[in-house]
């Protein structure tokens, strides 16, 4: 994988490189160079299969990380491309014309993280959530506990325990 990285680095301004396994590596790519890099990987390096496209919310750093995981079946290797976007007004160019399935991922990211992909098919339509107007729920600052307390009632007669305390008492009584 390192050879491939060195080779790509001569063509594209790549950032941090992490080799996770012999057949899996992640590399950070500037936003504007993602598309040419994907086309290069697909047409020249046989990374023809888009395994997944997802986002990670690094709230503390004020950034979203988009991960494009590419697979080269013949070469038995995977390359994950990380693109870092500012959290505010996050927008990214779509790749649905390269892989039609990407449109579904982009629609989900628009709804769950609020990352916009202008021009992607049906990107502003509801995908999973119906009538959702609040903060996109997969963002880290979305408070799941507050949401459930506001929207659901407690079942009467049901005892709740603090999971950490309960597990400590059950599993490690000496520590409690």
């Amino acid at each position, binding site marked *: 994988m390192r050879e491939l990285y060195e080779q790509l680095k001569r063509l594209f301004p790549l950032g941090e490189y*992490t080799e*996770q*396994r012999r*057949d*899996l590596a*992640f590399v950070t790519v500037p936003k504007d160079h993602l598309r040419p890099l994907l086309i290069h990987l697909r047409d020249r390096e046989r990374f*023809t*299969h*888009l*395994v*997944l496209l*997802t*986002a*990670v*919310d690094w709230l503390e750093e004020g950034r979203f990380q988009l*991960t494009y*995981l590419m697979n080269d*079946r013949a070469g*038995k290797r*995977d390359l*994950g491309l990380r693109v870092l976007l500012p959290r505010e007004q996050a927008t990214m160019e779509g790749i649905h014309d*390269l*892989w*039609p*399935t990407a*449109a*579904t*991922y982009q629609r989900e990211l628009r709804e769950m993280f609020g990352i916009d992909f202008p021009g992607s098919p*049906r990107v502003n339509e*509801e*995908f*999973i*959530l*119906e009538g959702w107007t609040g903060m996109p*729920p*997969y963002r*880290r600052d*979305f408070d*799941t*506990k507050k949401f459930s307390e506001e929207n659901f009632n407690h079942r009467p007669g049901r005892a709740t325990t603090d*999971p*950490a305390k309960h*597990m*400590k008492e059950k*599993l*490690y009584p000496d*520590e409690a």
Partner: protein
Amino acid sequence: MALYEPDRSQYPVKKPDGTLDIDLSSGKYLKLWQGPQHPGITGNMSLELTVCGDEVVDCQTHVGYLHRGFEKLMERRTYIQCFPIVCRICVPEPDFNEYCYAAAVEELSGIKSPRRADWIRTLILEMGRINSYMMYLGGQAGSLGMGVIGQWTTYVRDLMLDRFEELTGARIYHMFILPGGVRDGLPEGFEKRMEETLREIESTMKDVYEAMFCNAVFKKRAIGLGYIDPTLIDPYGVTGPTARAAGVAKDVRKDFPYLVYPELDFEPVTGKDSDAFTRADVRRRDVLLSIDLIRQILDKMPHDGPLMAKIPNVLHWKVPRGETYIRAECSRGEYGYYLVSDGSGYPRRVNVRGPSYTHAVALLERLIINVNIADVAGLMVSLHTYPPEIER
């Protein structure tokens, strides 16, 4: 008044931007919803069909009837608390979730599961695959009008659930493969009872072959239905039996061997014609392959040795910062977990890559055009889609 005969060579007309010009008020088209409450839909999903006569001209898929937010729930749970919920993402085949999650946590934590646990994990994954295929065969036959096949396959699936129950203590959600290893070894006499179950499945598969695959009605309806051109395999992210039926021997067990698959002797099952019939046939032969693999596993597996690696105190289990992707071949295609850790005791992000995510949305919307309404269910089942993987 003469019956309305649609002339599909004339309409719908494509607009310059590529979209179809469908004027519902013209009387030429009809909107038809198939699902979410419909026997011809796999799981909780709906298809918004636009039909012209009895042919589909446009389709939009709708999901969201079963969203449980697993990926978000896991961000608020410790690594060990996530282990019992991951299996609930997928009913027919929960074990792939357990394996992929466990393997991802192990990889980031630098833990290696014991050899014997790997053999038991492989056994469970193959048992789960047979279960899932049994549900599929019943669904595929039922969607094309043969209800009885589903009763036979449900019977043998139930026998396999009995084996699961004695091995793991549970029938559907086993919660057996946990980060570090597996919960227990094989019970006494398991091999013998498993062999009896496998023979019963083989006998049923023979009946299924004769009643379903040699049946003129099934052949007439399934041959040529939902043809996937091999050039679509990569752009549409097609994996598993659906890709193998198109002659592309994509099988994670061979391409990216995991667990003890390198020690097992097998060749991925492939087909040529890439239609609903070939896909059904590939899956039928895959059942026979799984039976063979289970026999090999029971024959070769070690009977003593540890089942769990040493894992940290689960209350203080902090996984080093990093990210990884673990994949496995489930009955529908490539199943994978993308796990990101920020170094704390909680996952930063877990993303589940289910094969239906690509098969049931983009691919289905493309294949369904020009299909007769009566064949929509048969086509959808032939992709072996499972909506909860789409919305997790």
